[in-house]
């Protein structure tokens, strides 16, 4: 186990799973990490699930009430609605992408520009060994391990207030996977001028003797960019 201080300095958290995982599992990891980072980095006022819940409750109560809600609350509600829609769309498209291609790396760029973002997070899954359903670890137990490690490492917390900034999702996928929604960015290079916080997921090589991917296997994997950014909001 890496000590908290070291993880923060090096900006890297290693999560080693004691067995193989499924492709759908990988998709869940990415979705949950994305939601978690948006909340932890103060782009969402509550966790994603809380927001969805309160939004549904609000919608139901609004149908009962005939009176229009007050203006400012209305604006807040619409901002929240918009963020949730954006995030939902990205999550759905991630699912599509994961069904078409293996995804070795995912980047979350927050603020600034593509070349010089304010914050940069990488989910690296190159070291994961994938397999079919039966022999794999359960997604829920993997998620528990993942978030326990993340919180112990304390990678995401910052006592200083963070500003709202757009979040761009970039994914690495096979060049011929045929995904339409994400736009290829063949020239893209991971920004080096900003600290890259890496969450590296891998499969323990002792427990799993199956063939793992070599570096050369990723040759035909190129970067794709989500065509929209997720704009956070505040209450």
């Amino acid at each position, binding site marked *: 186990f890496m000590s908290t201080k070291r993880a923060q300095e090096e900006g890297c958290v290693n999560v080693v799973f004691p067995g193989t995982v499924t492709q759908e599992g990988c998709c869940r990891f990415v979705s949950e990490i994305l939601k978690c980072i948006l909340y932890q980095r103060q782009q969402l006022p509550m966790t994603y699930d809380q927001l969805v819940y309160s939004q549904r409750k609000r919608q139901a109560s609004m149908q009962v009430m005939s009176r229009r809600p007050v203006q400012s609350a209305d604006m807040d509600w619409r901002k929240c609605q918009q963020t949730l829609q954006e995030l939902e769309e990205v999550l759905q498209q991630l699912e599509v992408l994961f069904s078409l291609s293996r995804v070795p790396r995912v980047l979350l760029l927050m603020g*600034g*520009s*593509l*070349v*010089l973002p304010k914050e940069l997070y990488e989910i690296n899954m190159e070291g994961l060994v994938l397999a079919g359903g039966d022999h794999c670890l359960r997604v829920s137990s993997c998620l528990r391990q993942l978030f326990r490690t993340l919180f112990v490492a304390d990678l995401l917390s910052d006592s200083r207030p963070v*500003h709202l900034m757009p979040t761009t999702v970039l994914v690495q996928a096979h*060049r*011929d996977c045929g995904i*339409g929604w994400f*736009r*290829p960015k*063949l*020239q893209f*290079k991971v920004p*080096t*001028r900003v600290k890259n916080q890496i969450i590296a997921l891998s499969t323990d090589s002792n427990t799993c003797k199956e063939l793992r991917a070599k570096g050369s296997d990723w040759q035909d994997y*190129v970067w794709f960019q989500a065509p929209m950014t997720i704009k956070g909001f505040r209450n």
Partner: protein
Amino acid sequence: MEVGNQKPNINVEVHVKSHSTAKLSDVRMHVLALLNCHRLIFGNYKWTEFDEDVLKKHVESVAVVDAENEPIDFQSCSLSIHIFTLNEDGPSTLSLEDDEELSAANHWLLPAAEFHGIWESLVYESGVKTQLLDYITTTMYFSDKNVNSNLISWNRVVLLHGPPGTGKTSLCKALAQKLSIRLSSRYSYGQFVEINSHSLFSKWFSESGKLVTKMFQKIQQLIDDKDAIVFVLIDEVESLTAARNACQAGTEPSDAIRVVNSLLTQLDQIKRHSNVVILTTSNVTEKIDLAFVDRADIKQYIGPPSEEGIYNIYLSCLEELMKCQIIYPRQQLFTMFELEMMGFAESEVSEHSLILRGIARKSHGLSGRALRKLPFLAHALFVKTPTVTLERFLVAMDHAVNKQRAEKADLVNGV
């Protein structure tokens, strides 16, 4: 460069579709095959339709660009093939203060979709555009070869000056776009930073100098990436440097002098880096600080367009209107070059082109911005039907030019 490489160089720009994931080497191979089928072409040429599947699927256009108006034989030329995709994201802002929504500069990734086609739309005296391009390519080449700039004086500061509405700012954007495509084998990124000079004057007294420093720190971060070529545009520099003079005259607070001084020092700092080009524009040359004019090596006067220029501007406008079927049916119009080749002979086919030439002649003295507006005014004021024939539209344009000239005369008399 290889020794003995004396063949004329031909630039071919290959615009790859934004959804394409093809390998550059594959695209290149297919483009070479395409060029091989066409032994001889005449001047600039652009392919937008292809028989071949790979090109059809991945390539928007293949264009031979910035060539002289003479036959080109591909076999006897060395080909530079520049393959690029456009960045469709809009500009992002470089903000200085974290707690303030103060954006000091707009920032584009090049080649940008927003800048596409500007280069072609700008029409100047022969050679102005290519000369500028050659100037900058040479400075980039010199800095690549580490030529000592104390021995041979050269730098990468460009000043474009001339009357308003002649497309100086657009030319800066187009130049940056062009260069990022041309130099794509050398730099994998192009970046374009447009500084809002007015935002550098802080509302807080004595803070302005600091803002300039902060902004250049951001730009420095971009420059530090040696894979990127960075273009910095400072529009209307006279507004900055005039401040310094006003300051000396006592009409402006002394804070302004610090802004200008710190800007000049910072420019000196960043221009040392070989991957920076500083582009500046000015509507007046006399008012600019001498200290600044001196720093610019490449000074280019951009005047109002000549008759030929006006003709070509109108031609591109009419082509666009025919493409959108506002002018219908489509009719043939010749380029000035083609008209010249025919000796301006009157015939049925050249009739419209010659009328347009007359209108162009009459429009002399209008700014480029006014010229590009003219077809719109013609339609709004004198056409009034959704579609129109070319004959009627030319009559409307003639009226619009008369109106513009009258208005211009009124303005001058008013002063």
